[in-house]
């Protein structure tokens, strides 16, 4: 296994993180996985449907029982895809001995209900172990946690959730005029059309969950093996060693789309409209009488309905409930009515209060003047150069600079010039400088906005300042003079220069 070609990031993962990874993989490759699942699942579903037309329960059981058969090619495909090889149906058919090995048979028989089936599959199909060796390996891979079992439980619940929500979606979203889906029939009455609809929705839920289940089990297997065999360390060692990388072959397109078949099988459930006939009036009457006389119309059915038995005195005969209970119930009824009246006024007031509040807010917003656009900020006359030192800039910068040069305080002079430049840039060009901006960052910000000669000036100033401050190299007097001269010109140049 060339672990340096793995598409996922290899690092030590807890089992639950492994499940996460599995779900991410399934999301990423969902269309291919679903298509592959349908390739094996659809024939069995259709075959079962033809065989067991009358009982949806048995059909569902059959389809559910053969789940390991559908999941085997998925594991195989995932294992290859994770290393960069994208297999098509043909490649899988060629490798069918490996995809559907004979060792799979126990999984279809007595091992079908294994609680952590998803973890078993990589061992069975990819590692090719069976019997005692497989059990031992499974024990090793399962470790101390029961995450595989949790995965099965979670996926079963998610299937139920998907089934129920699919059923309710169909039931709720049908518009009012059309025949509604009878929800109770869909769960209780065997063999009726709503029951078949609900069974099909469950099959769809199984189809949707299968890629996630398989991918999560596979990722769990990967995580465990990474932990046991220290794949992440091995990768680092290989990189250090400089192992040559093999280029994967050109990816084949996976072209499995079976959605049309699904839609067709769903459409087959809808009834077809009846055809009309042309008859004369007497013929029609005879036909109607003959039809009405047939045995289908002679059925009897028992229905129970409630009928109002009369006034207050009728309750004496019932005697089923003791008097005190009747009084209690009547009292509760009256209390309920009073509660309803109370709630009614409460709601009225709450609604009124809400409307009033909203109205007040709306009127207040309408009367508030439009927010003025934020005025141009005046740059502060104090500039923070180093953290926690503030420099007061004098009114006439250049006089102070020359005074400092006269005092032989070159450092102070250059720092003042630099600070004054930053201040000028902030005021004139709206340069935004934070405390943490370095000199070169300032320069980079500036060069984009200034014309060429001023950018040149700033560059020279920054470099001279840096040489002095960090390199302790004094600038030459000629250079300093040139800087001051150009700076004077720049300052007096004004806006837009």
């Amino acid at each position: 296994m060339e672990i340096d070609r793995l598409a996922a990031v290899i690092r030590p993962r807890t089992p639950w993180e492994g499940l996460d990874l599995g779900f991410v993989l399934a999301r990423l490759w969902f269309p291919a996985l679903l298509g592959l699942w349908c390739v094996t699942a659809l024939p069995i579903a259709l075959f079962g449907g033809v065989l067991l037309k009358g009982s949806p329960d048995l059909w569902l059981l059959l389809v559910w029982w053969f789940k390991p058969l559908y999941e085997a090619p998925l594991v195989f495909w995932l294992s290859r895809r994770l290393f960069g090889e994208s297999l098509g149906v043909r490649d899988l058919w060629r490798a069918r001995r490996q995809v559907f090995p004979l060792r799979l048979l126990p999984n279809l028989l007595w091992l079908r209900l294994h609680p952590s089936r998803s973890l078993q599959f990589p061992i069975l199909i990819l590692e090719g172990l069976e019997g005692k060796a497989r059990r031992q390996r499974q024990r090793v891979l399962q470790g101390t946690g029961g995450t595989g079992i949790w995965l099965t439980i979670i996926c079963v619940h998610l299937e139920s959730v998907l089934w129920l929500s699919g059923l309710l979606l169909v039931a709720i979203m049908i518009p009012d005029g059309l025949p509604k889906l009878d929800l109770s029939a869909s769960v209780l009455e065997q063999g009726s059309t709503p029951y078949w609809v609900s069974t099909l929705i469950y099959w769809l839920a199984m189809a949707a969950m299968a890629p996630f289940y398989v991918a999560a089990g596979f990722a769990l297997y990967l995580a465990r093996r990474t932990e046991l065999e220290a794949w992440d360390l091995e990768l680092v060692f290989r990189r250090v060693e400089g192992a040559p990388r093999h280029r994967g072959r050109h990816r084949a397109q996976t072209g499995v789309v079976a959605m049309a078949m699904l839609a067709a099988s769903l459409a087959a459930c809808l009834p077809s409209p009846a055809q009309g006939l042309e008859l004369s009036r007497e013929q029609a009457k005879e036909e109607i009488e003959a039809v009405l006389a047939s045995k289908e119309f002679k059925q009897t059915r028992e229905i129970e309905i409630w009928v109002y038995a009369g006034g207050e005195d009728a309750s004496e005969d019932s005697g089923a409930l003791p008097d005190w209970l009747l009084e209690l119930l009547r009292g509760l009824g009256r209390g309920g009515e009073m509660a309803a009246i109370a709630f009614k006024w409460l709601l009225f007031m709450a609604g009124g209060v809400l409307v009033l509040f909203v109205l007040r807010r709306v009127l207040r917003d309408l009367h508030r003047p439009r927010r003025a656009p934020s005025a141009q900020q005046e740059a502060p006359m104090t500039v923070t150069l180093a953290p926690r030192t503030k420099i007061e800039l004098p009114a006439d910068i250049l006089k102070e600079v020359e005074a400092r040069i006269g005092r032989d305080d070159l450092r102070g002079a250059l720092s003042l010039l630099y600070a004054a430049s930053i201040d000028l840039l902030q005021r004139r060009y709206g340069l935004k400088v934070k405390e943490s901006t370095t000199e070169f960052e300032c320069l980079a910000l500036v060069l984009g906005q200034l014309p060429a000669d001023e950018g040149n000036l700033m560059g020279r100033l920054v470099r001279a300042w840096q040489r002095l401050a960090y390199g302790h190299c004094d600038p030459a007097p000629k250079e300093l003079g040139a800087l001051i001269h150009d700076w004077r010109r720049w300052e007096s140049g004004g806006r837009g220069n």
Partner: protein
Amino acid sequence: MRQSQFEEEQAAVWTQYLELLEALERSWSRGRSRLPLQRFPRLFRRLCGDYALARSRGYSPGLVNELHGLVHRGYRQLYRSRRDWLGGTLAFLSSGFPRTLRRHAWAFWLSVALFFGPMLAMGFASYGDSDAIYSILDAGQVADMEAMYDPGSDKPGRSLERQADTDFAMFGFYVMNNVSVAFRTFAGGIFLGLGSLLFLGLNGLVIGSVAGHLTQLGYGETFWPFVSGHGALELTAIAIAGAAGLLLAAALLAPGRRRRLDALRANAAEAVQLVTGAMIMLVLAAIIEGFWSASPVAPQIKYFAGAIWWLLVALYLTLAGRRGGSGGD
């Protein structure tokens, strides 16, 4: 540094911090603004530093635990989630929702056309022809409708099974009914807008045909006062829900430069705002329908109230949130 010396030096800062912390823990959001909150981050940083020092220098467990507790409480105060529910809701209702609707005015007007168009057409048709309603509803449903608005019944506007229900129970029924209709209209938009079209059209036809049929039957004196109160809010809310559904459809059919999924996500955020606003309007409509519409007030007053509601809804949707004002978008 010895521990006692350390404690002495830092005692002042710790006391300040503790005072501020306890004041924060006790106060509501109103009182908080009066506290010197700008000092808190600096004090918190000081305390974290002292805690780290105490641990690394190996001071007594009592001191370390005490500082740990202070740091923990300060952290919770610093990273509190501030949720102003009332203000947020009011801001949404007063400006966020109307602004979102105006931003997608095209969807709203299209939805209005799809809803009111069939309604008015069918209304006039069934007013003129007494049998036209049977092309939309079956005989049982029409009979139920007629029984509901029969001038002779005790409580007009209620079906036969619900004559004994309290007003509050009717309110619950109306909420469930209206909100489910609005939600279906919205959710139908995901089916490329065909669901929304269908629901808007169907509901419009049904409402229009019932209105026209009852009026030509002579039940107009019970029907129109009943619906005038809540009609403005309810019909507009259904149109808004339809607009939300059309937004979803627009994301799927005309995503522009974005991927369809991204367009759906962006439009869904706006559509949900519209649906929420529509739901609130429907609850309000249910309050009016349950408590006001069925009450024995003179029809003129009800018509007047209905006109006021129409005016209010129109003004609200056009004008609310226009100027700068608070955000809430």
